[in-house]
């Protein structure tokens, strides 16, 4: 038996080293100095590490060495485009949270551990996105969750934060217990924890073991559902987002939730590939429920964080459309990924804007937002834009991802009859969500300014009566980045679409697997988007389906995706996408992607 160590130069390992070393040094800096250093120092170090990590991912993508799509290997982590996509999304949110925390949390003691925990949590998210093994997935899941329990309670004297953290902790612990239980059942059925091996073993599963697989599937969906804020498991979301420090709410809503989706893609969509018929309708029902209940509850709220929390729940419903339709439509997963990236930016910018406003006027109550549009024009602008983007108003990026999702639903109508109803539900819900988004915007811009309570005098200048408000600079900087992202990709979404398209596998894998159950899976030359694409599923003799602690060499390499060389110039596109700029050249793949989008609906 030869089990090779993991490649030390693969992206997740490099990221782990960068973020892990920084994350472990940060709290030690405090220990060796007599006085706490300020949030600025620690925050800058954390910011540097996160930027460096994103740069590493971009360089790796640019070098063309990362295989496209999702790769399942006989290792516990695989360096693929899917992981890179999610990592970039989550690291962007982490950066936003870090930068805004420098200002927002500046009086909370213990800055070292604070940023260290953010970094450790982002390692968890990154490893989660790259993991191809259930055990790795669960450990990364915990690495992501445990720091956030602490971060949510970081204001130790605030009972609200403590309550929020305790609630979050209990649901999180329940979720991880369920995941471990599900993984134990899957291990029992298949004899392995490697997702590729699980996938293969489930294809030829004994009929008598199917009930166990269903228990495992239900537990997996429930476990991930807690993090993804799906409807029967969403109870903790508003309280936690309200109680936690707002940058941490942004991190929770925009990053750990995405990690939940990444994990669900890996474990449910691919690990449980064989059962796609069984789970897709269930997921679709949950999706509609999630959207509707989230939106309805948001309508009744008066606190900005709670509105955003419920909106976050409803957005999870949109992403779930992508998950539920993944087997039936090429576009579904791509749309879901695109929406993941968009939602990461939109939601974090909305949270940070709320934090910026709260920093000055001292409240999250939207009734106090009257006339804030004139006093804090920039923050209000970003808030308005991100709310509109969340609602999916056309020239903004949120429109495109929702559009692709609904297109996927219509597209899948040819296979499953219920799919178009998802699109209808989604459109109706978008209209519904405009109800409360517009309410906030109305408060900000159309209501007369009253004497707003301005708690933080240091932001106020001018004489009494003509109060002007300085907008917090660092928060503003992150918000302007987000604004550029939202408007930029709203006007010109092609690069992001191409990136998300590069990160999803060809949908043929879904139609392929359940039919050809017993024999080896034939690799097939597929035409996709005008460029020749090769999807290969190599299965070398793997014995009983385990990666095997005994027996001979077991090599399972399941590559679901394209050859790296098919999309030329991918690098330029991606660099553009994360910097929030438009790229120069019209790329081959990009045009193809957009044209595909154009045809399908």
């Amino acid at each position, binding site marked *: 038996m030869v089990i090779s160590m993991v490649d030390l130069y693969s992206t997740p390992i490099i990221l*782990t080293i960068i973020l892990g070393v920084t994350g472990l040094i940060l709290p030690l800096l405090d220990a060796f100095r007599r006085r706490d250093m300020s949030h600025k120092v620690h925050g800058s170090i954390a910011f540097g590490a996160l930027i460096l990590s994103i740069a590493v991912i971009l360089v790796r993508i640019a070098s063309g060495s990362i295989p496209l799509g999702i790769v399942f290997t006989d290792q516990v982590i695989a360096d693929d485009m899917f992981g890179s996509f999610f990592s970039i999304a989550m690291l962007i949110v982490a950066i936003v949270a870090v930068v805004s925390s420098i200002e927002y949390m500046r009086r909370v003691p213990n800055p070292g551990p604070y940023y260290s925990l953010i970094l450790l949590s982002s*390692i968890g998210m990154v*490893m989660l996105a790259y993991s191809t093994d259930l055990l790795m997935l669960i450990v990364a899941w915990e690495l992501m969750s445990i*720091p956030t329990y602490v971060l949510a309670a970081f204001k130790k004297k605030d009972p609200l934060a403590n309550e929020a953290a305790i609630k979050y902790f209990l649901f999180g612990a329940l979720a991880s217990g369920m995941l471990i239980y599900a993984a134990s059942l899957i291990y029992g059925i298949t004899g392995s924890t490697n997702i590729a091996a699980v996938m293969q073993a489930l294809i030829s599963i004994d009929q008598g073991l*199917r009930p166990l697989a269903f228990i495992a599937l239900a537990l997996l969906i429930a476990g991930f559902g807690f993090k993804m804020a799906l409807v029967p498991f969403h109870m903790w979301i508003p309280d936690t987002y309200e109680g936690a420090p707002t940058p941490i709410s942004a991190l929770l809503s925009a990053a750990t939730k995405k990690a939940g989706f990444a994990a669900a893609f890996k474990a449910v969509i691919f690990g449980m590939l064989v059962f796609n018929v069984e789970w897709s309708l269930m997921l679709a029902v949950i999706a509609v429920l999630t959207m509707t209940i989230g939106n309805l509850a948001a309508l009744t709220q008066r606190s900005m964080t709670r509105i955003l929390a419920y909106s976050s729940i409803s957005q999870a419903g949109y992403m779930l459309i992508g998950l539920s339709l993944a087997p039936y439509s090429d576009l579904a997963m791509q749309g879901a990924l695109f929406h993941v990236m968009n939602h990461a930016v939109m939601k974090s910018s909305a949270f940070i804007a709320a934090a910026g406003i709260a920093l000055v006027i001292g*409240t999250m109550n939207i009734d106090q937002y009257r006339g804030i549009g004139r006093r804090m024009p920039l923050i209000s602008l970003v808030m308005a834009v991100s709310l509109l983007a969340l609602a999916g108003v056309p020239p903004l990026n949120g429109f495109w991802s929702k559009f692709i999702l609904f297109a996927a639903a219509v597209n899948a109508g040819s296979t499953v009859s219920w799919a178009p109803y998802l699109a209808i539900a989604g459109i109706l819900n978008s209209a519904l969500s405009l109800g409360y988004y517009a309410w906030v915007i109305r408060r900000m811009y159309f209501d007369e300014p009253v004497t707003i309570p301005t708690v933080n005098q240091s932001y106020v200048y001018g004489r009494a009566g003509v109060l002007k408000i300085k907008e917090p600079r660092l928060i503003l900087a992150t918000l302007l980045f987000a604004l550029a992202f939202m408007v930029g990709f709203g006007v010109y979404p092609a690069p992001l679409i191409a990136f998300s398209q590069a990160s999803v596998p060809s949908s043929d894998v879904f139609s392929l697997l359940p039919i050809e159950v017993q024999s080896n899976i034939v690799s097939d030359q597929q035409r996709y988007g005008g460029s020749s694409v090769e999807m290969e599923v190599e299965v070398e003799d793997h014995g009983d389906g385990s990666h095997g602690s005994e027996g001979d060499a077991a090599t399972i390499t399941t590559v679901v995706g394209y050859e790296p060389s098919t999309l030329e110039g991918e690098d330029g596109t991606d660099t553009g996408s994360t910097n929030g700029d438009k790229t120069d050249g019209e790329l081959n793949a990009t045009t193809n992607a957009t044209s595909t989008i154009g045809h399908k609906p």
Partner: protein
Amino acid sequence: MSDPYFITVSVITIASAIIALEFRELIYGAIALAVTLLGIAIFFVLLDATFVAMFQITVYVGAVVVLIIFTIMLVRREAWLRLDEGGRRRVMGAVIALAIIGLLGALLAASSIARWQASESVPTLMQIGEEMLTYYSPAFIALALTLAASVVGALVLAKVDRGKGRDKGKGEGEGEWDEEESSSGFERGGELEGERKESVEGEER
């Protein structure tokens, strides 16, 4: 099913799990939990996994239960710990639990694992070690970081912040919470009080 050791241990384990949740004195609940965990460890021994069993005892009895009991002793006088649940709620919970047992048990019994034949080969300690340090090495790193994160987090939370230097007054005031204020509306309790206090201080300066 005719193994007397197995039956004894499972009865003790399940009974003490119920006692852990239902016994009125929390500290006895913790002891019952320890018994449950020991019972699981004995199951591991019956399953020829001595290493896991010993690890379980070392971690759970040596650390986790001690921590739990320490916390219980620290906070045991607190009234809010003894929030009682209604009878209806309890009945509902019991129904849910029985439904889970019935449903999943039936599914299990229907599945083909009942016909599995146990093999003679036993996984050895060497295999565990090898797997952990080769195949699972990234997971091992992640686990190390998880433990580091939990230590950092627990220390930060448990530590009493005495304001130091520049941040003194502000840091303390930050999270302070005034009941009247925050129960009145939707406002955020914590930081706002702090901000307000801080602004007052700023004016004084």
